[in-house]
């Protein structure tokens, strides 16, 4: 038995024991809850800030996060096309709480997205970013709990999300004057 399978079995072994915990993990491991919730946080962040400088800082963080999300999604599509790893339920009997997904298990897309949000925001807003690591970790655990990912899938997803976020954070100043022009246009339209 591999370490990967042993850790997966521990998380997945909890499924089906407590109906309430199952429902929470299904919700956390859902493909839509976390991406929509955190995108709404970004929307709110765009309009927040006590001063123009603070708001601009927030809006640049939104740019960086959206750019990271786009690149991460693109990379995962490529990785899924290049390498197909069967899901855990294809190898052995597991407690599957979701209808079986058909795409590659490696890396976990949802975990990568969760870590993009958390790490991108952590780079510019330490408190908010730190708070978002909790749902990101819960999502990663939730994906194993519901039986759709191995630990290595979620670890790879988290690392990919963090690396891309860091890259985009560093890349954004190199994209000047595009972000500044976009913000200037937004201000002219009273939207930034």
């Amino acid at each position, binding site marked *: 038995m591999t370490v990967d399978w042993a850790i997966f079995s521990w998380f997945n072994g909890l499924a089906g024991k407590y109906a309430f915990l199952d429902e929470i993990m*299904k*919700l956390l491991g*859902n*493909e*839509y*809850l976390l*991406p*929509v919730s955190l*995108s*709404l946080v970004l*929307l*709110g962040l*765009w*309009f*927040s*800030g006590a001063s*123009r400088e603070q*708001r601009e800082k927030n809006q640049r963080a939104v740019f960086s996060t*959206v750019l990271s*999300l*786009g690149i*991460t*999604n*693109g990379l*995962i*599509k490529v990785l899924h096309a290049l390498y197909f790893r069967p899901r855990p339920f294809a190898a052995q009997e597991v407690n599957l*709480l*979701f*209808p*079986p*997904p*058909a*795409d590659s298990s490696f890396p976990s*897309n949802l975990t990568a*997205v969760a870590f993009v949000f958390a790490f991108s925001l952590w780079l510019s807003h330490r408190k908010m970013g730190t708070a978002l690591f909790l749902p990101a970790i819960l999502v990663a655990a939730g994906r194993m709990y519901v039986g*759709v990912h191995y630990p290595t899938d979620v670890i790879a997803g988290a690392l990919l999300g963090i690396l891309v976020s860091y890259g985009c954070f560093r890349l954004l100043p190199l994209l000047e004057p595009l972000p500044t022009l976009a913000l200037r246009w937004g*201000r*002219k339209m*009273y*939207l*930034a």
Partner: protein
Amino acid sequence: MDRFALEYSLFVFVACLGVLQIAAARNRLEGLSLFPRQGWSYLFATLALVFSFGWFFSSQSRYQSPLLDGWEQLLLFGLSSLFALALTLALASALKANKPATPTTSPDGLEVLQKLTYLQALRRKRGLG
């Protein structure tokens, strides 16, 4: 657009309407606020978020594996949030059409919406206000 994409867009649209009211109330953005009192904005936001999340996630089909991939989600979220913003700005302008424009020294940016509605800001820009 298939049914699921439409439902996802509607969910995001209603949730964005709620978040925009929170942003309006927290940052005192008159031009984005649909209500005369902050408390009403928070109440509306709470109802919009509870309703949209409750409705969307009450269906078991939401647990089926990706009916929308990441790119589609990103695109639909962007479009739905833009529609929500456009509707909010238009509604706030219409609801406060009779309110006299408050003078503001800010030439541009969101801070203009702390004093003016979006329509008033556009009219001022064109020298009509």
